[in-house]
């Protein structure tokens, strides 16, 4: 009753293909964006930025990236952590080699470098599919992390083997380095997340997105209607790695500040992002955000409830938290195998009719 599309007529194909075809949806998203840009930066403190919002935004970007590859183009990847490491080390090398260039350019370039690496490791996808491809991308994960630990050039021969983000500013505001304020960290991640989500939406609703989905749903039929599997698969790897690379660059430079490849970008990261898109919903931009929110926020929420409310010891709470998150993942997958995005879509479909059953 309150959520409906009756009377909301489209008079052009341009209108019909827009991102939020339902007026109420559109207003809702605009409202969220307005709050995110105009209210949150003024009230955010460092706990909210570091524990909740910044990791949520960064993982949302990584999840969109993996979703393009796995959810839209159907190519399973376990190399996300490795590609994030490429983004992180690329932005580190760029920041230290060309200090005069704006940090935003470095981050985008780091994404582009990751895209090239992604295409290289995407080449096996032309011959193998499914689990076998997953294993091939696993090789990328281990090889890249090994490479960044083994070759001192990547970490500028520092004694600790770590990379540390030097301070860089945008319009006088520090966005990397120890002096960065919570709202600056939040805002730079928010801008990247919003712009990249919009780009992902545009790509997936247009012809390149249809090529990816055609390859995912039935590669033989895709080829017979004129989709070149080589360009379709490699473009998916390139775009996906671009997103993941930017997420890795932000994770290192803005969020962590210092990183060591096997610790920050291990196989755990690959699984974390994969779980995000499975729980959030494969083939959905909204699902990428929902999955990232679920896996970033839930542990924080549980910790707060268990420790602060119930007064449990922190070590016990930490173990219980892992068990509950794991159980919830299994529960969600049984109840709704298509993820939170499908759950949300079903809710909206119900709301369109509510309170009238027909």
């Amino acid at each position, binding site marked *: 009753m309150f959520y409906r599309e009756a009377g909301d007529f489209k008079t*052009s*194909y*341009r209108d*019909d*293909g827009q991102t939020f075809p339902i007026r109420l949806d559109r207003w809702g998203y605009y409202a969220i964006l307005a709050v995110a840009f105009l209210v949150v930066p003024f009230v955010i403190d460092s706990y909210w930025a570091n524990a909740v919002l910044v990791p949520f935004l960064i993982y949302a970007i990584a999840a969109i990236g993996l979703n393009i590859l796995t959810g839209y183009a159907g190519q399973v990847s376990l190399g996300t952590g490795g590609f994030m490491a490429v983004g992180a080390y690329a932005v580190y090398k760029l920041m230290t080699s060309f200090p005069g260039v704006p940090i935003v350019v470095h981050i985008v370039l780091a994404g582009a470098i990751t895209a090239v690496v992604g295409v290289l490791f995407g080449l096996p996808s032309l011959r193998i599919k499914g689990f076998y491809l997953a294993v091939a991308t696993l090789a990328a994960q281990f090889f890249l992390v090994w490479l960044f630990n083994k070759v001192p050039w990547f970490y500028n021969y520092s004694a600790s083997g770590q990379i540390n983000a030097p301070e860089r500013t945008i319009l006088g505001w520090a966005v990397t380095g120890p002096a960065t304020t919570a709202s600056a960290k939040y805002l730079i991640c928010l801008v990247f997340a919003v712009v990249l989500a919009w*780009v992902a939406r*545009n*790509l997936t*609703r*247009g*012809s*390149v997105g*249809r*090529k990816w*989905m*055609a390859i*995912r*749903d*039935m590669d*033989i*039929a*895709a*080829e*017979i*209607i*004129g*989709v*070149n*599997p080589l360009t379709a698969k490699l*473009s998916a790897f390139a*775009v996906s790695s671009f997103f993941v690379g930017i997420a890795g660059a932000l994770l290192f430079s803005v969020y962590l500040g210092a990183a060591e490849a096997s610790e920050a970008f291990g196989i755990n990261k690959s699984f974390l992002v994969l779980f995000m898109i499975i729980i959030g919903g494969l*083939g959905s931009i909204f699902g990428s955000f929902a999955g990232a929110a679920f896996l970033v926020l839930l542990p924080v929420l549980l910790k707060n409830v268990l420790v602060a409310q119930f007064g449990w010891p922190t070590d016990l709470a930490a173990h219980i938290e892992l068990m509950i998150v794991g159980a919830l993942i299994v529960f969600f997958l049984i109840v709704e195998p298509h993820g939170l995005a499908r759950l949300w879509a079903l809710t909206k479909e119900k709301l369109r009719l509510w309170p009238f059953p027909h």
Partner: protein
Amino acid sequence: MTMQEGYTTADGRQIGGVLMDLRNITLRFGGVTAIKDISFDIREGEIRAIIGPNGAGKSSMLNVISGFYVPQEGEIWFKGYRRGPMKPYEVARLGIARTFQNIALFDGMSVLDNIMTGRLNMMKAPIWSQALWWGRAEREEVENREQVEKIIDFLEIQNIRKTPVGRLPYGLKKRVELARALAAEPRILLLDEPMAGMNVEEKEDMCRFILDVNDEFGTTIALIEHDMGVVMDLSDRVVVMDYGRKIGDGTPDEVRSNPEVISAYLGVAHE
């Protein structure tokens, strides 16, 4: 009839010259010869049927035409040029579209998106234009959508435009698959058993659509079908295959009275 001139069909349609010419095609899988030295042509604007008992090599023939299989021997001439060995997507770009015996739609996408995939070869906007949804990408999207809507109207599937294909019943899926093939504006449309598994009404609908496609768009159609009533009614000329050989070629009436065709279908009396 000569090679260059066409002929006039029984119902008065003018058929043009040779559009596709298959010369001495032989296709082997290891020791098995699926197609043995077959030649026939498909003329501009005609409805050409390929029939034969199960395992005769009909689908293999269609797969040769659409580029899935590359024959070991023989030549394929299309639009007056000899076609070298090609990938299926290159063949599609020449203007050859097809449907499949078992429906090959993209289940995760809506009907509209499925049909739009048929026009992917007409959409050439660079990726940055698509990423920003600005300029050429948006213009192409709208232009191609208009063409797709014409096909949606033509096949009377307006009401399922936004439905995911996975939810549709079998008969409608077949129709969507035809729509996707038509969206590519093909010179030759290959239909692999378009009537398989349909009830009488669905068959009648499909026959009407095939005739209308041929009539309104002037599309040349080559089809494989088992329903003899349908084949004899629809097609202008019929190729009959058996065990990979061609045993008959001609108008439906000629084929019907060909003794070799009759024996292939009904069996030969043993003394």
